């Protein structure tokens, strides 16, 4: 066993930490409030290699933790772009698709988005109603997608649609869609509790015609693709949650050492000591589950144990981040309830972690199913 990151992984981690501290720290709160993620920040993250370029998944995850500590919204943007857009194109894309889209998404620093969920279809992919109908050399897409992170800024979208509605989820196919295609339009930003700078929108597809060459993978392979890439996405969320948890712990320790009540710093009260001890314990455990899953995926993305490891990491880290955020606000007292302090945003952002890339309830279903095998 070896619990230490390699030299190179530490370099990626350090670079992300420095960038987060110097560039993101001063502006994250304000940008989040106004719901903006400026292009120069996306470019800065791309320079770090975190937008689809980092070849070592463990190093990438270590970097993602550092970004998420300071600005969870940006962590979500990075994760969607890397694990849900770049990764499926590089794994399932044709040579022509890879040649056209990967440089756009990496060197040219354009964002990607992922259009899977719909008003009536979340975890239940069988309820997806968006259709793709073949018409000569084109597919014609029609439907309504929800929760599309970076949907407004993205240059490229991965869209799931039914190509054989009689087969339910096994009739789904995945498509690469240029977002400037006629018939692809975005709605108003989803007004969310947290992750407010992720540019999350509804996407409307209205007779959106794309070349037949933009089918990703094979016809009706969409659900299999979604299943195969979801583990990376779940580990990414574990990383964002670990980042949020670590930030909560660090802010809590600093506050407890500084804040005086009844003539002594509140760090001297057992009630506060108990909270930070539990936060530290759970976040450390979450980090280990996350790195174990990440290491497994780095070695072999088709490892049969990865499904269980990724769901455990995602479930545990996201729940631990919420407990940590709850306690951080508690340690800050009334101050924690003010938007002027960072724990207020962490508290709201943490809440998304148990929801997206499927809820904690779905993770438990997956875990139990793997156990009972």
């Amino acid at each position, binding site marked *: *066993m070896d619990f230490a990151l390699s030299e190179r992984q530490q370099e990626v981690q350090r670079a992300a930490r420095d960038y987060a501290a110097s560039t993101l720290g001063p502006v994250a709160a304000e940008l989040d409030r106004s719901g903006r993620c400026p292009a120069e920040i996306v470019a800065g993250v791309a320079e770090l290699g975190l937008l689809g370029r980092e070849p070592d998944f463990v190093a990438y995850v270590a970097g993602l933790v550092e970004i998420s500590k300071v600005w969870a919204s940006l962590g979500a943007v990075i994760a969607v772009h890397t694990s849900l857009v770049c990764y499926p194109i590089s794994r399932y894309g044709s040579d022509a698709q890879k040649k056209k889209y990967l440089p756009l998404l990496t060197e040219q620093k354009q964002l990607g988005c992922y259009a899977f969920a719909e008003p009536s279809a979340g975890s239940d992919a069988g309820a997806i109603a968006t259709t793709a109908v073949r018409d000569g050399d084109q597919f014609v897409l029609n439907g309504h997608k929800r929760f599309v992170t970076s949907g407004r800024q993205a240059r490229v979208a991965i869209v799931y649609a039914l190509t054989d509605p009689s087969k339910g989820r096994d009739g789904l196919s995945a498509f690469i869609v240029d977002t400037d295609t006629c018939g692809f339009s975005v709605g108003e930003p989803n007004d969310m509790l947290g992750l407010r700078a992720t540019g999350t929108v509804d996407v409307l597809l209205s007779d959106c015609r794309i070349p037949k060459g933009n089918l990703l993978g094979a016809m009706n392979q969409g659900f299999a693709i979604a299943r195969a890439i979801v583990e990376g996405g779940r580990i990414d969320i574990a990383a964002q949650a670990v980042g949020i948890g670590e930030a909560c712990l660090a802010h809590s320790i600093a506050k407890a050492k500084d804040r005086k009540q009844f003539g002594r710093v509140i760090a001297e009260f*057992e009630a506060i*000591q108990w909270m930070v001890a539990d936060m530290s314990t759970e976040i*450390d*455990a979450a980090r280990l589950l996350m790195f174990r899953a990440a290491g497994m995926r780095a070695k072999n993305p088709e490892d049969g144990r990865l499904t269980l490891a990724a769901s455990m990491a995602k479930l545990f880290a996201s729940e631990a981040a919420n407990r940590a955020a709850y306690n951080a606000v508690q340690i800050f007292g009334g101050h924690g309830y003010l938007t002027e302090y960072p724990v207020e945003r962490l508290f709201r952002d943490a809440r998304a972690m148990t929801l997206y890339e499927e809820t904690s309830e779905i993770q438990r279903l997956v875990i139990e199913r793997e156990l009972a095998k």
Partner: protein
Amino acid sequence: MNLEISDDQQILKQAMREFAEGEILPGAADRDEEARFPSELIPKLAEQGLLGIMIPDEYGGAGYDAVSAAIILEEIARVDAAVALLVGSHNSLCSGHILLAGSDDQKRVYLPPLARGEKLGAWALTEPGSGSDAGAMRTRATLEGDAWLIRGDKQFITQGSTAETYVVMASTDPSKGTRGISAFIVDRTTPGLAVGKLEKKLGVRASDTAALHFDEMRVPRENLLGKLHEGFKDVLAVLAAARIGMAALAIGIAQGALDEALSYAKRRRQFGKPILEYEAIQWMLADMATESEAARLMTWHAASLRDAGEPFLRIASQAKLYSSEVATRSTSKAIQIHGGYGYLKDSPVERFYRDAKLCEIGEGTSEVQRMVIARELFR
């Protein structure tokens, strides 16, 4: 970074599982019911090297690293926590202290019989009035001629009545609290050593827990273990390492409970289908498995820091705190999944539930662990 155990450790885990299921499990329920010490297992444990797990080969031990030790303790505790407690305390406390602080002579004399299982070891720190607060220790040792004269009482001593080699903590300078504590190696045959009451316990009932009384007990001068007045430093180091063992023990109990609960949920049918198909049951199993896995990784992390010679105090306390609380939660859920059958003495989870509680108390309560962790965090 590689968070998986090596192939050798995987083989060890499998071998330990077979040994535990074949040799330890068969009598576990009866020993628990009768509160009977597992004397018959001592030669078998010794044969497997389990009474000298981390003792180097030159002293007759098996020379395993700390990660392997955690794997061994987990597999034993998965079937019988009382035997795991015997193995853990014998190794980490008594032998661990002698290995850490003993002179070459002391190690040569005392370790081989302990490692070979010819003698069992015990470690005597706790007193009726001094649990987590070692500074309140009242046992005194005074040098009289060529011998230490020790007077006092010890409480909750694992292997208290069956050990032949004891490590005993006593105050050599009562004015200095914990800075006046020293450690001594004491033979069972020492005049003045009397074994007191055997305790009846909620769980780990087959483990031997006894009080000790020292009445003008004369211990040879050269049996001072470590430096005079500096015993407490060694005590803390021994305890920090032992917490990794206690964490592994807790994970073993949690894993045992999970395995039983999963197998029962597949067999048990209600309303026309196995109860495994109900989400309420699935949720409990998923949480048990996830938390056990998290606890296991933390414990292995602490062990591998120890193997690398790096500081591990906070991580070991976190591992012990978390694993023990997982064990109590998981065993409680295991009973819940078994329903009324889990409440019966026939069910192994009934025993696991009682045994798990030990882990939140032994080697420092959960409250002491949180104190240690917070102190490290607020440094």
